[in-house]
């Protein structure tokens, strides 16, 4: 497969002329022709837009609006929270009718916080005037800020906030790689985008190149996208300031559109398992992202619509549709002519890595590139899994050079340490192994499950570590207090025992006091007290009293 690259226009990038290959991969039936030849259709404005606050990797955006508030098209309605996050904008004008949890595109059918806008159909723009800028005069930092404020994330599917990935001067970037390799079957939104808006993409590429100050730039395109390639070539030729963008064709092998795989194909180098392309001086961006960057910087428009491939035999009119973010998938399905009667499965994303959803009442997000409605004929119910016969076909096709059957064995038996030892977390979940498995084992499902279990276990480990630390701290504190008290007591005891004379003094004092009390009591018994210095009248009263007492005594005696 080591064939030489077909480079067009100005091939200064001599070092990238030879293509390399990654291990494994699959040649899959394309199914892209269903929609790749039809122009992108604009979806009608839906009555309601449901804008999730989290459409990217990182922290969810924080809502800036209240229910009942009027919003304009492009108004910031969710600000980014933290370093790795992205903001969201109102895709159209209208009234906020709810800020609440709604079903979002998610493998488990989860609900997540969304801002719901009842559209008014006016498409009112904000009054704020954004001056048009000449980006060639802006610094990389300023460009990154513009990209951030437009809420741009990687539109290829992962949804990593673009400004974070660009790094704003944090990395020393040698190569900017524009990914136009749409390797999953059925998906053709990037293909159409290139065919129709190649000039926008080239402009976006220039901006990105300036933002990361990359020495060179390659646009990599799959070798079965001839029309898209021609469009890019034309745009490159017409592009005035094009000096250093090369166009390279890569063989159509799934998953060559994966970032790590594509970098391997073009440079022969592997992104370190725990590292990022930026560590190697490479930044990879999707063509859709490049077009969005052009809109953000040149037209000063935030990321509001995206192109979604609506395809599969389960749809009456499959096609690529440009829809506002927040548009319900059901609305797009209606635009695509509705479902055929025998539709059975709705897949969000491609047929290899996408997830099947139970309901189409979910909004388009920044990363939703495809909604695939298929019939049972097209994708039959998978046959029941049989025991693994260790045939090794999975190993043959694994683009991460893993041993999928061993991983399956360990994941199946919940031997998570061994699974990690066999590099479970290097699995990119591309699905090649499960696709070729003659025993029809849902391998990817096992790996996802094992990964989740490991995450849960690590979280529990962290919290139990914390609890243990607290418990140990408490024990040592109690121990310390006990010891301190014991030390104090001992000291006191020692002090008391060491001073005998003081003890005798005390005894003597007590005895003296007792003596005094005794003496006092004797005196009080023998003589009447308080009889000195009496007045004659008092003496008279006393004498009278004594006489009466004597008289009474005599009366009693007689």
């Amino acid at each position, binding site marked *: 497969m080591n064939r030489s690259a077909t480079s067009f226009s100005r091939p200064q990038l001599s070092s990238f002329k030879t293509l390399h290959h990654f291990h494994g991969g699959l040649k899959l039936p394309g199914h892209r022709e269903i929609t790749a030849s039809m122009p992108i259709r604009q979806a009608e404005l839906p009555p309601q837009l449901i804008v999730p606050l989290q459409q990217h990797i990182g922290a969810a955006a924080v809502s800036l609006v209240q229910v009942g508030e009027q919003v304009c098209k492009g108004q910031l309605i969710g600000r980014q929270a933290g370093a790795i996050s992205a903001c969201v904008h109102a895709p159209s004008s209208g009234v906020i009718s709810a800020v609440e949890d709604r079903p979002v595109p998610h493998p488990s059918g989860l609900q997540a916080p969304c801002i719901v806008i009842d559209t008014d159909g006016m498409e009112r723009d904000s009054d704020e005037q954004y001056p048009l800028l000449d980006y060639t005069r802006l610094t990389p930092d300023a460009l990154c800020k513009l990209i951030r404020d437009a809420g741009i994330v990687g539109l290829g599917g992962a949804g990593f906030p673009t400004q974070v990935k660009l790094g704003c001067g944090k990395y020393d970037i040698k190569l900017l790689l524009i990914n136009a390799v749409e390797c999953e*079957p059925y998906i053709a939104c990037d293909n159409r985008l290139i065919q129709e808006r190649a000039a926008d993409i080239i402009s976006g590429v220039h901006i990105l190149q300036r933002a990361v100050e990359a020495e060179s730039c390659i646009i990599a395109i799959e070798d079965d996208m001839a029309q898209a390639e021609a469009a890019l070539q034309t745009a490159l030729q017409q592009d005035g300031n094009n000096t250093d963008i090369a166009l390279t064709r890569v063989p159509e092998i799934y998953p060559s559109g994966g970032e790590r795989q594509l970098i391997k194909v073009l440079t022969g180098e592997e992104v370190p398992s725990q590292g990022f392309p930026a560590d190697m001086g490479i930044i990879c961006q999707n063509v859709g992202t490049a077009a969005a960057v052009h809109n953000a910087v040149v037209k000063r428009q935030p990321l509001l619509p995206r192109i979604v491939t609506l395809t599969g035999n389960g749809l009456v009119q499959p096609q690529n549709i440009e829809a506002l973010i927040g548009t319900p998938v059901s609305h797009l399905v209606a635009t695509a002519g509705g479902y055929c009667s025998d539709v059975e499965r709705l897949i969000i994303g491609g047929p290899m890595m996408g997830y099947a959803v139970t309901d189409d009442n979910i909004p388009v997000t920044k990363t939703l590139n495809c909604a695939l409605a298929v019939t049972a004929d097209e994708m039959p119910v998978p046959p029941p899994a049989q025991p693994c016969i260790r045939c090794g076909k999975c190993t043959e096709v694994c683009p991460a050079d893993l041993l999928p059957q061993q991983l399956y064995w360990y994941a199946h038996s919940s031997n998570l340490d061994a699974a990690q030892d066999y590099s479970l977390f290097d699995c990119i979940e591309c699905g090649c192994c499960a696709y070729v498995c003659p025993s029809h084992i849902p391998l990817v499902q096992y790996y996802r499950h094992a990964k989740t279990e490991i995450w849960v276990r690590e979280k529990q480990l962290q919290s139990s570590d914390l609890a243990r630390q607290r418990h140990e701290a408490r024990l040592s504190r109690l121990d310390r207090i006990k010891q301190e008290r014991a030390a104090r007591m001992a000291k006191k005891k020692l002090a008391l025992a060491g001073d005998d004379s003081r003890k005798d003094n005390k005894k003597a004092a007590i005895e003296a006091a007792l003596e005094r009390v005794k003496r006092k009591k004797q005196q009080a018994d023998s003589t009447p007290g308080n009889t000195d210095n009496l007045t004659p009248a008092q003496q008279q009263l006393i004498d009278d009293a004594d006489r009466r007492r004597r008289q009474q005594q005599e009366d009693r005696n007689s």
Partner: protein
Amino acid sequence: MEFKTYSSPHLPVADSVRSMMQRVLLALLPGIICFSWLFGAGVIINLLLAGITALFAEALVLWLRKRPLATLTDYSALLTGVLLGLALPPLAPWWVPVIGSLFAIVIAKQLYGGLGYNPFNPAMAGYVVLLISFPLELTLWSAPATAPGIIDTLLYSFTGQLPTGDALDALTMATPMDAIKTRLGLSETLSELQGSPLYGSFAGAGWEWINLWFLIGGLWLLQLRVIQWQIPTGVLAGLAATAFVFYAYNPDAYSPPLFQLFSGAAMLGAFFIATDPVSACTTPRGRLYYGLGIGILTYVIRTWGGYPDGIAFAVLLMNMAAPTIDHYTRPRVFGQGN
């Protein structure tokens, strides 16, 4: 509306165990035809007895284990029976394939947990049990193309009744490999033996063609990617290289590599037996070592061992080593250092 959900990937499956086993059985056909053409109806009787017993035994154990009988249709039990049947001499009495097949399926396969869980190649385990228990019956090879007719063979197989006027000794003869080994040991030179009827065009008489057809079937499997190149290449390279070393050292005392490659069960072993995925290594590099080990051991057992062919013992010995080899031959993961 409520859609059905399944785990990714969603594209329809590309292959099945059943169709893989089917293709292996198909690939065996040319060799089987050649084998039975040279050695007569006994080959087919062995295959039928071993195959039917294997299916019956598998069904019985599945029923006892309360497992779905549908797994019978994956052809894995039938393949085990067929491979065992191919290893047996055509004049073996009927109970030889039956006992071998029962042992292979019930003990070597199902008692370990059934398909996918057996550490040893079931067909070879069954064969080795027969070889150790009934050494005499396992030498009942006829000379190529002199086999008795189908009626006589059936009669002999089930009743032990020899065709009238024949002695057992007259019907059977040692395989070329065995004979050449014995006679090289009696200090005849290889060049003398090469002139004898034991020697065909380039290897053991008759056997060279059987091996050639198994080779062709095996190459077809490689092309279909049902098997991968590492194990067959390893086996054949290990066998040929070891044979070459000794042949180069003393060409009169040791048989040449080509003879080794096209005699006995070399091709059947390399492409169909050693490649049993369940009991073999699974890492790409490990499979090469595993194959090399089988090739070298086969030569050693063939040349200095007490048994006529070494494939079965070599395979079982390497089965034992497979987990260890796998452990030490893990591929370098993408993006990780060496």
